[in-house]
């Protein structure tokens, strides 16, 4: 084909230069993040409406969530966001080993988050604090306490799925970094994976106070 020989291997055929490719990829990622905001938006809307309808029930029910575990998870996610940012910083300066290290730490943080979430969930399930028709707990005053747990489980559940997806993405980026696909000239996939991970963190920044602190 008539592809010029000075085109780097990472530059796809239909782009004229690397900057166009990078900007396109990032714009695409941001539009994707926009869809994520609106996906969670539905649940935030449901939260707002049911909390406004049943403020006392929400207040009573939220006390049954574990603030200590929630706070630890918040700290874990913030730290993982920092390490992801550091990983991108490292690859920008061609420090591949540092990138690998920081991405691995991020994965460990993410796993910690899910393990803590698992303990929280199993505790709730054990007590019968389940969504909707499976709710059997009797210790919460107020109207329709099961709705609180519907909101809690759907919001944190969807967020948990995103953490899992983020781990897969970061794992894939980690493998590609180890294979040497990225360097200071080309690291857009690392950056985009980072953007995704920061959004997961950003959503948790709202979920934590709304569910655990003010209810």
């Amino acid at each position, binding site marked *: 084909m008539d592809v010029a020989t000075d085109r780097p291997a990472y530059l*796809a*055929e*239909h*782009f*004229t230069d690397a900057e*166009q490719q990078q*900007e*396109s990829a990032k*714009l*695409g990622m941001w*539009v*994707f993040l*926009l*869809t*994520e905001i*609106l*996906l*969670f*938006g*539905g*649940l935030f*809307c*449901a939260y707002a*409406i*049911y909390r406004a309808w049943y403020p006392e029930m929400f207040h009573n029910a939220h006390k049954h969530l574990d603030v200590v575990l929630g706070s630890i998870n918040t700290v874990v996610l913030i730290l993982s966001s920092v390490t992801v940012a550091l990983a991108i910083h490292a690859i920008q300066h061609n420090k591949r080993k540092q990138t690998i290290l920081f991405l691995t730490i991020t994965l460990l943080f993410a796993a910690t988050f899910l393990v803590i979430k698992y303990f929280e969930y199993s505790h709730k399930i054990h007590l019968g604090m389940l*969504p*909707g*028709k*499976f709710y059997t707990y009797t210790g919460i005053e107020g*109207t*329709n306490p*099961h*709705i609180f747990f*519907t*909101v809690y*489980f*759907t919001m944190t559940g*969807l967020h948990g799925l995103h953490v899992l997806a983020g781990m897969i993405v970061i794992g894939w980026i980690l493998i590609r970094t180890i294979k040497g696909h990225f360097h200071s000239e080309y690291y857009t996939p690392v950056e985009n994976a980072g953007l995704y991970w920061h959004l997961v963190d950003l959503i948790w920044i709202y979920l934590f106070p709304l569910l655990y602190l003010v209810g």
Partner: protein
Amino acid sequence: MNIIPEKNYLTYPKGLKSWLFTLDHKRIGLMYLFAIMFFFLVGGIFALMIRLELFHPGQDFVSADTYNQLFTLHGAIMIFLFIIPSIPASLGNLILPLMLGAKDVAFPRLNLASWYIYVFGAMFAVYSMIAGAADTGWTFYTPYSIETNTAVISLTTGAFILGFSSIFTGLNFLVTIHKLRAPGMTWFKMPLFVWGLYATSIIQVVATPVLGITLLLLILERVAGIGIFNPALGGDPVLFQHFFWFYSHPAVYIMILPGMAIISELISVHSHKKIFGYKVIAYSSLAIAFISFLVWGHHMFVSGQSELAGMIFSFLTFFVGVPSGIKVFNWVATLYKGAVRFTTPMLYTFAFLILFTIGGLTGIFLGALSVDIHLHDTYFVVAHFHYTMMGGTVIAFFAGLHHWWPKIWGRMYNERIAKITAVLVFIGFNLTFIPQFIMGSHGMPRRYFDYLPQYQGMHELSTYGAYLLGTAFVIMAIYLIHSIFKGKPAGNNPWGGLTLEWQTTSPPDPHNFHEVPVWTHGPYDFDTIKVEPDLEKELETA
């Protein structure tokens, strides 16, 4: 005279594998075209079955339960599998990168993935037909959709998956339009088809995720009884309607905006005159996209939502009429003193102007709170949205299909038969839906299997119209398929258009352009540039 290039995107590379793994936007667009036309056929057959049952009052063809499943499938298939992907995913994929002078869309692999996701979602929808088709209507309103024993989960899963396909197409187009325009093509030198698809893509990426979460919650409601939309568990069924219409109202603009985009393009080319009010048409597309998010509550005037919300939504609804009206006026003004050619695409464009105006104006009736109380859930509503969705979008889709058909295949269909068919479509369509306006305003409720004898005459007319329309579509399919093999080579620029897709060969090269095109003029500068259509003689005699 006109020659078809030996190496084009249809012939090179060869083999089934080269199609299944293609990253070429033109091939993906073509694969979309075949898929959506298949589901147009399926949805159309359901429509004809509905009309057959309604020919006489009482049961004469299917049972009441089957009837409920038929209109559900007709609606769900036509909306999720046909109209929403119709123009953007097929014609958009085929033409948009050509118009921009780009080699491909920004993310070709995502583009291919969106087609496979579409097929995957369609498989769920087809499965739901076998496994006891849903009878909820395409709106899946709770609590009935929680209680019914039919296959709601597989159909909603299908719609959920199709949402991703739609998002990926929208995302791809947004980035393509932002980043891959040819040198010289500034925002206000883009063809209006591109502007329309840009506005459409915004709605696709903003609204579709909300449909995703809605259907996800509905599935959880059925599987796990989470109670969020179930009044028996303290949930709120009207909340479901809010969630649903926050997507589904903007979704009707996902359907109509690309149709308007095609009309803006065609009306200028086929009247050989510079489009009137280019910027206003472009801005009005964006305005429609934005306002579409503010008006969903007009579907819920009798749902039990608060009176305040009803008034707010009714008030806001009227604003949609403004940009839509602006567009219609601009199109008509473009025709004024133009060298109008009565080609097949132009006949469909005229049909669009008439039918969409009727559909739009009756939409204003329905947006008025007090009038809607009377007309809600009657055939008036059915006729209204068929006038906009079918008289608008589908007619525009066929206009675009006839316009770009010679570009896609390099060959021309038989213009005379095509024109007769266009007239048949127009007559059949009006015969089907004008009676529905009348009987709707007399109180015939929608989604009813049986009716009072007083409506029989209208229903009979409507059924005749539907079968005439069906026949016209069969004729269209025959002459279009015939033209693929036997049509006359059309030349690179059969209509004399100025946009970039006409500057490459028909069918285009696998890489679209042999060299990067430079865009030096506006898309509709017919006043300064003289173009000779390759079909000049044929167009003269017509």
